[in-house]
């Protein structure tokens, strides 16, 4: 394991990989600072470019983009009271009042430090999970893996949406879309509507672009104008913000653990991590009445949690091939495209790549915080860029990305058609993450199901792991029902 860790570090220290990491971190911060641009939308646009890189460069670039969005989106939360992404909503509650009081620099600085520490704790847990999970994963067969895919989609569908039926339906719809094209087991061509173009299925790149990037662009073009007016940064408070994190180091550690746990559970994203951590801080800290009025602990708690979540998120993504949310799902696509095998195999055959990912996560967090501290003034201006600059650039990049998927002009038309679906899903509150996750896991799900039947007939249903996971799936379904019933009873 130590050898793999050193190999991973050496590979990442190559000039090309470091260059891609720096570019990825810069883009991730930039996207994070722009509401509606960062996160899955940005990853979807950049994914096809990463797919053409060497594996280590692609990992460095993608991890750089994906892991620092929550650091970048603090700018808008603190300075304009608009969440840059779903992971920085709770930061507004105390960050914005601090900025109004002239303590914007202190709030931002505390947030960067908390993000850095949280990110490092998350990376440490990812590192520590390797020896723990190795023997466990070796005992898994296709039945357990099939149940894991079902559990992943159920969790993401039910818990991510606030509308469980829609979430679950969207996940199943995604799996159905993944069946388009030639079935390798039987040779049957499924749902091709007479078009040879569809024999290889629909590219996941097109789906992610149309579901995440284009609807966000349309939303941005619909609203128009700047996001909001910028609150002045103030002159002092940078060091105070750093000191605040060390004064409240126990809070940082506790909230980071909350973030790691949320990341490990499929279906609970950044938005849940920051609110959980914020609620935890309010419940456990002294003088909770000052929360919401500009208390620096209200900034430290969500920011350490949402960055720690990135490390936790990668545990199921890498070792079980089950991404916890949309960004992890897109990362998974990128990893598979450059030759990685996320799932139980990776721990045995590609451990050095796992360590490249862990090191990339560590360096991304450090680099992001340094860049934010160094360029705090120009970075603050980014969040008020106007739509007439962003919309055409993102559209152009999205179309180029779509074309780069297969270098076929049909992909552009498919992107447009699928964008209508993505737009309607966003408009009517259909969760898009389970849909994309369904498309990604659909092929695996079908393969594991067939392998299980071929090897064990129906006996696989009685495997202890399958029964345990079956109970977990049942609990996933039953919990929201039980919660609603309890709430109704309490209301009555």
């Amino acid at each position, binding site marked *: 394991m130590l050898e793999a860790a050193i190999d991973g570090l050496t590979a990442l220290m190559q000039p090309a990989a470091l260059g891609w990491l720096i570019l990825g971190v810069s883009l991730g911060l930039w996207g994070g600072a722009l509401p*509606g641009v960062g996160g899955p939308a940005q990853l979807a646009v950049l994914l096809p470019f990463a797919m053409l890189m060497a594996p280590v460069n692609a990992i460095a670039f993608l991890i750089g983009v994906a892991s620092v969005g929550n650091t970048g989106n603090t700018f808008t939360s603190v300075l304009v009271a608009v969440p840059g992404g779903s992971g920085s909503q709770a930061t507004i509650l105390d960050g914005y009042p601090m900025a109004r009081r002239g303590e914007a620099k202190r709030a931002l600085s505390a947030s960067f430090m908390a993000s850095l520490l949280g990110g490092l704790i998350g990376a440490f847990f990812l590192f520590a999970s390797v020896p723990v999970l190795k023997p466990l994963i070796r005992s898994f067969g296709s039945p357990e893996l099939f149940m894991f895919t079902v559990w992943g989609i159920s969790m993401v569908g039910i818990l991510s*949406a606030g509308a469980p039926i829609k979430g679950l*339906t969207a996940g199943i719809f995604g799996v*159905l879309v993944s069946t388009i094209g030639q079935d390798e087991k039987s040779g*049957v061509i499924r749902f091709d509507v007479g078009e040879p173009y569809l024999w290889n299925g629909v590219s996941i790149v097109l789906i992610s672009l149309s579901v995440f990037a284009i609807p966000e662009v349309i939303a941005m073009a*619909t609203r128009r104008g700047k996001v909001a007016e910028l609150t002045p940064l103030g002159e002092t408070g940078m060091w105070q913000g750093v000191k605040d994190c060390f004064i409240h180091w126990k809070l940082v550690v506790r909230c980071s653990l909350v973030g790691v746990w949320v990341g490990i559970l499929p279906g609970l994203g950044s938005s849940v991590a920051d609110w959980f951590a914020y609620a935890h801080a309010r419940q456990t800290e002294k003088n909770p009445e000052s929360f919401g009025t500009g208390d620096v602990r209200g900034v430290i708690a969500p920011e350490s949690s949402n960055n720690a979540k990135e490390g936790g998120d990668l545990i199921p993504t890498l070792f079980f091939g089950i991404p916890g949310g949309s960004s992890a799902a897109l990362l998974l696509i990128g990893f598979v495209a450059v030759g990685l095998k996320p799932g139980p195999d990776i721990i045995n055959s590609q451990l050095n790549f796992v360590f490249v990912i862990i090191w990339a996560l560590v360096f991304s967090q450090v680099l992001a915080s340094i860049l934010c501290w160094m360029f705090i003034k120009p970075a603050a201006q980014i969040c008020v860029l106007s739509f007439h600059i962003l919309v055409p650039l993102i*559209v152009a990049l999205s179309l180029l990305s779509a074309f780069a998927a297969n270098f076929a002009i049909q992909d552009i038309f498919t992107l447009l058609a699928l964008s209508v679906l993505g737009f309607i899903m966003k408009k009517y509150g259909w969760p898009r993450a389970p849909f994309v996750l369904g498309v990604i896991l659909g092929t695996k799900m079908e393969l594991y199901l067939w392998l299980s039947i071929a090897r064990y007939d129906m006996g696989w249903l009685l495997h202890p792991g399958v029964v345990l996971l079956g109970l977990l799936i049942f609990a996933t379904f039953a919990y929201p029902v039980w919660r609603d019933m309890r709430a109704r009873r309490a209301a009555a």
Partner: protein
Amino acid sequence: MNGAMTRAMSGRNLFTLFIAAVFIGALVIAWDWPLRASIIVLVLGVCGAGLALAQFVVDLRKGKAEADQPRPAYETPDFEAEDPRLGTRNTWETWAWLVGLVALIPVLGMPVALTAFVFLYCKTHGGGWLISLFLASLVAVFIWGVYVQIMHVYWPNSLLGDLLSGWMEI
């Protein structure tokens, strides 16, 4: 009765019915396939259609205001214009730009169409000459640098490209 009918025919409910119809359609199509190819589609079709119809009933019972309530936790902040009518107009206008761009690609070729789109969109939405030209040049240089120089991409034929090559031959 009229109100209930209007509610049932709202965009939200029609989309839910569309999803249910897709699942039912998949079931019908997969019925004749060998079991190896059809089993997962049959399971998904039954579950998906059932859930979509259940969602339709739930939305009908909730009414519009309540059905608008849940916002998926993963979703990024929803940007809607302050004036809903203006928002609708802006949305349609953006779709028109997208469709126009996609239609323009076979005519002008991808590099030219994208560069022209960036310039025109920026210029007509409040960007000055300088910023519009700068952004268009940025895209042109990006396409040339990444797609032409590094990736050596073969661009699909376009009407403009065919015309130009025709003239060159003459």
